[in-house]
């Protein structure tokens, strides 16, 4: 009890303001046990597929889509927050094929990779 009171006293006297981050609900299919990385909701895709980009910190990141020969055919720069970020890969305009999705920091440091095939 004494410890609890001391803790309460400490919190009450502290100038630090704790901002609670809005947490994004992560569907079970996109849950990632790893601290950072990339996960796709499905590996066979028709129009679009949800992805989880789990980021080490807030900032700008690159989502690259590469074709069979590992040539970048589409690239997005996103502003992400630390933790889970549920986004989409829109594939309707892409030729039916198999692709690799890669996640990098803005300065091209690798974070994660997955691949998917189109129906």
């Amino acid at each position, binding site marked *: 009890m004494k410890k609890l009171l001391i803790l309460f006293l400490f919190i009450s006297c502290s100038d630090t303001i704790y901002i609670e981050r809005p947490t994004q609900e992560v569907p079970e299919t996109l849950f990632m046990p790893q601290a950072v990385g990339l996960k796709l909701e499905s590996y066979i895709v028709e129009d679009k597929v949800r992805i989880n980009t789990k980021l080490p910190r807030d900032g700008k990141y690159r989502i690259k889509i590469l074709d069979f*020969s590992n040539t970048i055919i*589409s*690239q*997005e*720069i*996103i502003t992400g927050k630390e933790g889970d970020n549920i986004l989409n890969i829109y594939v309707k305009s892409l030729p039916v094929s198999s692709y690799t999705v890669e996640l990098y920091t803005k300065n091209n440091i690798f974070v994660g990779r997955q691949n998917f095939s189109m129906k």
Partner: protein
Amino acid sequence: MKKLLLLLLPFICLSQDLKLDHSYTNSPDFQVGDTITIKFNTIQITENVNPNLYVFDYEYNNKLLQKIEHRWKVTDNETNTNAQVSLNHWDGYKFNFSDDYDENDLSAQYSNAWVGTADSYPSNSDWSVERITIQDGVGITYSNTLIEIDFKIKDKINTDYTNYNNVTHLNWMRAEDNSTSTLYDVDAMQQKITLSDVEGGDAGSVTINLKTSNDKPTHYKYDILQNGSSVADGYFDANSQAIVSGLENDIEYTIDIKVDDELASDWLDDVATVTDVFLVFKEAIGAGSSPGGTTNTFTHSIQFLLGEVNNSGNVDFDDSYVLLSHIMNENISEWFTSSANGSKNVWGEKNQYGYSTNDYYFGQKKHFTPTDDTKVFDFGHGLIGDVDFSHSFEPIVTETPKAQTVAGYAEDLDLDISTSLVNGKVEMIVNIEKEDIAGMQFIIEYDKSILEFEEVKFNTGNLLTNFASERENKIYFGSISVENNENIKVGEPYKIVFNPKQTITNTAGLVYFKTTDAVTDTGKKIILKIK
């Protein structure tokens, strides 16, 4: 030490969780022309390993086998009726196995030779690759056939192969429990298939090889004529080959090779691009390797044929104007290759193509004569308007030793292009850092069901000619400096703006880069590589 190794051996062997097998279901012996069926299945090695995601690549020798069709079987078993399946196909590639791992170790090849490896699939016209993806909510059952693929056995007579050894390879496999992101170790049961004692073959088969830098050989058709009457016709296959039967030895035939304009409608407008405009302009003004010079820019005489796009009989400033109008979406001539004009074809026997003689105008030797000893013929093909040979065969350099090829001049340039969601709009920004670019052209495709094109914002410099046009779901844009010495400004010369028609979370995949082309102020072609 030996004892320790012996003790460890069972653990090493037990590291694999499952095997992938492929085998033919037919009984040998085989004849040329027979259809064989190859089935794929997995075999359980370790208990309680139940992957629900399979992704694997295999490759087959397309000179010896011709794929006919495939049938999914995984959904026939009672457990996996709801499995999702996908098969993707590429011609002209062969897997580059990692030497550090056994070729049978498919999961190691996946992790170390394919994932993130830039040269995992170098070009190789003898091989075709297929990627098979199967995912389900439950474990994919073992021992049941996943897929069956039918192939026809081709005649090896006109190939470099002396037998049918190793006509297929399993390349790599990813087997995963997707619910826990657990990857499993996979080995190959039979990694390669050999067909023994294949008999037969038509000694009268004649092979026509199409020589073009275009990666769409199946869009090209041939017609073989004897005394003006057609005796055989058809399309080239994915290996740029036509195997023709029914011809006679010691008879001279004529061949017509043309692009099927309907099949090619998607790429005919990409043949003449900003590099072609720039090269024709430089040739027309006699600039040579420097703006003040008087030497030729063209390095092959056939470029005078490919660059003559207004039927005037010579290459001059008007030809560059015709091509410039084309990339600005104005069609003012019917004499060059475009979607509006159709293909304008030039072809000739490979060793003659491009070099004029009294008999063959610009080397367009269209005859061939099969004999007992000669049954393979190569024909180069070009398209009017394509002076940089982006979609044409570049002549073999024997006529002018000092001439340098256009490809030899090309250099690579890293380019940063990306899309972002900015204040509710989708913006695509091109970022360049090279200072001597005199011409640049992009063709991008976008998802028209989600995006509406708004505009291209140019920040290229004051004296450049900029262009942008929308055709179907494509945007053509770029710049060229033709009448002055100003180059494209470094920084962010292009910003393309789209309006979303619906709420979107982000932009990945909504816009993709189809064609990029650039040329320096000295006429050097730039191969743009997006980083």
